[in-house]
């Protein structure tokens, strides 16, 4: 069962991510049409990042509002696993390039790995802390 803080986080983060679904295609469309350079290019690239920053801010708010210490502990652990996965991919791609690889990983690879590691950690914790039938 979701705590009030988790319910609020889920609701608001869906709304913020819906903003991403608007901003990313819009920025992409403008970039394709006007082929921006300089400051305009930078500003266009920043636009789709804003919702992601919003979700991070909401996660911080959730951690502050969550009264259940155990759930907060699990959320922090999952975030750490996600961050670890992201760092592994980042370092790995850095070393690949350092050792002469000319290619590049697909865009937002680190972000997908972050989400994947978080999800895997959440499933793993949920399975290892399975709650038995109530006595």
């Amino acid at each position, binding site marked *: *069962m979701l*705590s009030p803080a988790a319910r609020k986080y889920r609701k608001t983060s869906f709304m913020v991510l819906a903003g991403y679904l608007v901003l990313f295609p819009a920025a992409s469309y403008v970039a394709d049409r006007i082929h921006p350079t300089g400051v305009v290019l930078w500003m266009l690239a920043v636009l789709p990042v804003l919702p992601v920053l919003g979700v991070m801010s909401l996660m911080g708010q959730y951690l502050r509002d969550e*009264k*259940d*210490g*155990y*759930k907060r*502990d699990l959320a922090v652990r999952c975030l750490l696993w996600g961050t670890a996965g992201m760092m592994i991919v980042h370092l790995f791609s850095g070393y690949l390039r350092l050792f002469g690889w000319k290619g590049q990983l697909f865009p937002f690879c680190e972000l997908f790995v972050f989400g994947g590691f978080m999800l895997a950690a959440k499933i793993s914790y949920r399975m290892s*802390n399975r*709650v*038995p039938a*109530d*006595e």
Partner: protein
Amino acid sequence: MNNRLRVLRAEKGWSQADLADRLEVSRQSVNAIETGKYDPSLPLAFRIARLFSQRIEEIFEDDA
């Protein structure tokens, strides 16, 4: 950290869900504390102690 939470809860005839409601935490939290997978915060330990009218050290026992 060892604790007597399961015993105290059984003495009252409460389920984990009953205790979770009284402590205003999730049932997962109660289960994790009872199985020693999670040590409660100090405020939660005080709430548990107040609920069972005992001192914290009578419920929780340090491993050391």
